[in-house]
């Protein structure tokens, strides 16, 4: 195999460098206590161990088994036509590195992916070898996220899934047409088939677990995927509707969005000096949050007339401004679902309001003490039937201006983006955000 003789520093550098464009760094979704004779445990909310200079959470040792690849996906840094240094970890190098990082509490576990070496099946066998070594010889009980290789036999997917906590198949491109153009070796079917298979196995396994207490767990933390944003002309509506379908049909735990960073010069791709569309990615994450925690449907947020998000206004504010007839709502009476739809009120604030309502009527001063941010919410609520003191109700147009993230557009939003989307976040949100990495 290529790469022998390169020392472990070089291998780690090459194989983490080529893995970094995968945005998921989640260590969440499963609670598992430690075991006698083993090292490690897993925490459902996930744990971030550090944050890189780009502000992204580092939770797992994110590396490729190898960056050798027989495929030639145009958007990918590891495509076969790219002239780059190639190498591979041996299963024992990888296990040794993981356990030693884990003991020092650098990481929550391993995120293993791979270029396709020789064939999908051969690649999967290498990954299974490494994970078996980790689990059975090193008795590693920490978190493992593994990416399955499209095109591998389902028997191999099953074996890999019994060793991992989370599995993912990256869709990357949100439509069949885009796939055909940019990833000629992949088809919609070759991606969706393993996804469907994993989803089916998870459900089958959960009923096994009820029947047999000691049945081994198949990807207990569920599956996730990644979509690249901005490499193709696909609209936000197309992307969000796809995500909604994935959450519903395939019961995915997370869909990650990755602003396309040009890694190749190609006529079919945006030019290499294109800036990654970070604000658009941010809006998609906000909308994704609205689908999962705020009870919104994709078609409430976007439609044929407006297929893309307004970059100035976050998706929830945008919805509220277009539905002013439903406001203002009374803080002391509104149901939870409606509180969640107020710009500026998130899951934590809504829960606190419900709690505080049990003991007394809430006024604006009370809201502030509870930590509810009124900057946006003030325009959409009343307390004890009154609007906030001295509040001038602005016209619809001014309202829109007041709600927009002007600063983000004026001062180069890339610097301004924080990991916290505009809807205030719950502790659950925050911990998910920290670990699931927005």
């Amino acid at each position, binding site marked *: 195999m290529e790469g022998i003789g390169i020392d*472990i*520093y070089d291998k*780690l*550098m090459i194989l*983490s460098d080529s893995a*970094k464009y995968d945005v998921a760094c989640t260590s969440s979704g499963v609670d598992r*206590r*430690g*075991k*006698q*004779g083993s*090292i*490690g*445990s897993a*925490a459902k*909310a996930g*744990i*971030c*161990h*550090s*944050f*890189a*200079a*780009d*502000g*992204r*959470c*580092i939770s797992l*040792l994110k590396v490729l088994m190898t960056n050798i690849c027989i495929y030639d996906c145009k958007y990918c840094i590891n495509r076969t036509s790219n002239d780059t240094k190639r190498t591979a970890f041996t299963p024992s190098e990888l296990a040794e590195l993981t356990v*030693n*990082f884990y*003991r*020092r*509490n*650098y990481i*929550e576990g391993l995120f293993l992916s791979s270029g396709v070496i020789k064939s999908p099946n051969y690649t999967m066998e290498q990954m299974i070898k490494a994970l078996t070594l980790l689990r059975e010889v090193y008795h590693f009980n*920490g978190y493992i996220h593994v990416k399955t290789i499209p095109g591998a036999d389902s028997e191999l997917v099953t074996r890999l899934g019994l060793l991992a906590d989370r599995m993912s198949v990256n869709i990357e491109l949100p439509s069949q047409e885009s796939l055909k153009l940019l990833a000629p070796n992949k088809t919609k079917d070759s991606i969706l088939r393993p996804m469907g298979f994993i989803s089916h196995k998870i459900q089958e396994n959960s009923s096994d677990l009820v029947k047999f207490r000691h049945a081994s767990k198949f990807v207990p933390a569920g599956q996730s995927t990644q979509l690249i944003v901005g490499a193709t002309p696909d609209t936000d509506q197309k992307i969000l509707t796809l995500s909604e379908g994935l959450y519903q049909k395939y019961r995915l735990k997370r869909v990650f969005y990755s602003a396309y*960073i040009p890694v190749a010069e190609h006529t079919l791709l945006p030019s290499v000096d294109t*800036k990654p569309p970070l604000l658009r990615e941010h809006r998609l994450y906000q909308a994704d949050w609205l689908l999962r925690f705020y009870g919104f449907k994709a078609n409430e947020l976007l439609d044929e007339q407006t297929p893309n998000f307004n970059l100035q206004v976050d998706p929830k504010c945008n919805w509220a401004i277009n539905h002013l007839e439903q406001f203002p709502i009374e803080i002391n009476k509104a149901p939870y679902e409606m509180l969640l739809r107020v710009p500026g009120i998130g899951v934590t604030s809504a829960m*606190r309001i419900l*709690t*505080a309502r*049990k*003991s*007394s009527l*809430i006024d604006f001063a*009370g*809201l502030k*003490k*509870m*930590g509810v941010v009124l900057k946006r919410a003030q325009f959409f609520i009343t307390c004890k039937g009154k609007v906030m003191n001295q509040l001038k109700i602005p016209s619809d147009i001014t309202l829109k201006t007041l709600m927009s993230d002007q600063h983000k557009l004026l001062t180069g939003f890339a*610097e301004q*983006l*924080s*990991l*916290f989307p505009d809807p205030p976040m719950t*502790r659950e949100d*925050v*911990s998910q955000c*920290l670990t699931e990495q927005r």
Partner: protein
Amino acid sequence: MFDRAEIVYEYDGSFEGLMCCVFESFALKEIPSAIRTPSDQQSLFDTAKWIETDIIKSDRVYKSIAAKISVQAQELVTLGFWTNSPQKELLIYYFLRLGYKHGSKVMSMLTDDTVSTLQKAVHHLTSESHKFKGFVRFSVYDKVMVAVIEPKNFVLPLIADHFCDRFRNESFMIYDKTHKMALVYQGQEAKLIDIDELTLPEVDKSEVEYRRLWKQFYQTIAIEERYNPKCRMTLMPKRYWGQLTELGKDEELYNVSEKQQNLSKQAIRSFEP
């Protein structure tokens, strides 16, 4: 019915001691205007009343919290004592007065100043302890692992179970430099002990190698086109950096004790107003 003169209680700094202050106040029907420990700064004019710690009294108060208020209130008070909130004693005391008056309802009185201040302080404690589950960095010395942390709140009791469970076959120590306490886990048994000063020996070659590898991984994994130091600072404020292997200087990877001394000096300087 209450004495109007300024009353100051002084206690031994233990949770049980604080419970005895509560006992005293209710027994004598007096409201202290301050509750402090002998090490707290004293004003020139007050004379403090020493409250002796008595396990029987403290136990009575502690049990009464669950009985007369709620189990949640009992937990909030326990956690409140580990926060770094200024005058946490008085805050807990006022919270208990409210609780005895209103019963379990006190937990939903989020618009009350005392309740919201205590809740915020506890939230600060729990979120800091969650961060430290990730930010603790062990150095491996042969069979023993040692980490040093400098938290604002007293987080060791909150992270103890996590680390003892995860590394149940290891022997380790997490030293809290701020509170001069250490969590020591050895032979399946965990203890919290007082340690005034900790000097660590030099680390061996393989420890240095893994620190270098980790630091290199940390640097490689960031995407240049997404460089966002402000976001990193929000999620991982600078006060944590002193003990993070990946953010130390290269030469500091070799000797941990020297690194800690230098960095804590730096940290103190950068946090002075």
